[in-house]
């Protein structure tokens, strides 16, 4: 083997070792790298107690209620298996809608209600013109369209 071949083998082995080390480290930190917990994890008690964390999921259809003060909102976040009631006082982002993804930061109250201090809208990876969205809404009746992401495209006829 020529010296330059040795050097390439050395570089290759180095990268391989580095790759394996990275995989192990990332696996070890798996739970620290998630941006939010799902309602199922909340229900099974996997979330930090008495500390601030984020929950994410879909805003349940028909669950959004605005209180009389005009600022406080109540809604449920669901991952289709479990759902968590959330209260939030503040301005919601424009893309926040029922049936769409949202991430809320806050604490779990004693009664199981999540008291959010910040609410973010989670956008999905689907980009299409409004006409296509309408066509999708019709097709959805058969329930064929399924997205791999947390946010199932509802394709509802929505205003822009």
């Amino acid at each position, binding site marked *: 083997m020529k010296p*330059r071949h040795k*050097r*390439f083998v050395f*570089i290759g082995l*180095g*990268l391989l070792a*580095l*790759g394996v080390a*990275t995989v192990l480290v*990332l696996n070890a930190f*798996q739970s620290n*790298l*998630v*941006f*939010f917990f*799902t309602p199922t994890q909340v229900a099974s008690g996997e979330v930090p107690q008495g500390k601030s964390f984020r929950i*994410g999921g879909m805003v349940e259809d028909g669950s959004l209620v605005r209180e009389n003060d005009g600022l406080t909102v109540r809604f449920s976040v669901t991952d289709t298996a479990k759902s968590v009631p959330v209260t939030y006082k503040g301005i*919601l*982002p*424009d*893309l*926040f809608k029922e049936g*769409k993804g949202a*991430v809320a930061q806050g604490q779990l109250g004693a009664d199981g209600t999540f008291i959010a201090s*910040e*609410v*973010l*809208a*989670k*956008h*999905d*990876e*689907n*980009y*299409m*013109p*409004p*006409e*296509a*969205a309408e066509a999708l809404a019709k097709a959805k009746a058969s329930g064929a369209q399924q*997205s*791999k*992401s*947390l*946010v199932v495209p509802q394709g509802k006829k*929505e205003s*822009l």
Partner: protein
Amino acid sequence: MSVNWSKYSAPMAFYPLAGRLIPWFACVAVVLMGVGLYMGFFVAPTDFQQGEAYRIIFVHVPAAWMSMFLYVVMAVWAGIGLGLNARLSFMMAQAIAPTGAMFTFLALLTGAMWGKPTWGAWWVWDARLTSELILLFQYAGVMLLRTSIDDLRRADRSSAVFALVGVVNVPIIYFSVQWWNTLHQGASVSMSTGSKMAATMLTAMLLMTLAFWLYSVAVILSRVRCIVIERESLPVWEGEPTVVQKVAEVR
């Protein structure tokens, strides 16, 4: 007639070749960018959820792709440089870093501008955004490490090792949205599942990607020419002494 390509591994021979290639890449890049921006702003339809705000995608996604792609290319040149002890490879790696850093910054900036109206936050510490920020620091690190070492050979080798080690971050950035739940959405365009975008949107985005790619080639080749002049003491103009030599004479 066969061309002896290996002769272009010599900086002296590569210098004029790069000079001849630059105008072609630059012209096509400008044309494609014009067409891509026109399609992105006037032909592509409005998005059903985000309205017009989504149009930042035509800069954001190509910039983010280029930031990752250029890092890999830089690491490959660094690896070839370490393996073959080739000066031109190190020069290529050196020339790529600033353009890669520029695209990383552009991706972060456009992302923040899109994040505020869409998510409701300029910045969140999720896996995708954080790893992309780390990529920016890596580019900065490669450049800083090079300039902090006076001996050129040592500077070449250290920054090459730094670049190679950092390449582990690229798959982390790319797959972060699949491996962990993040606020950043998943890939709209992927090899396995195809596209989740309307056709004209996708066309405009791919045109912009191609334009950014050709722009990168043109800029990197221009920069590598400057580096060749600087490091090889090449005469800038035929028969004239280099700037460095002139300065030395004046003193």
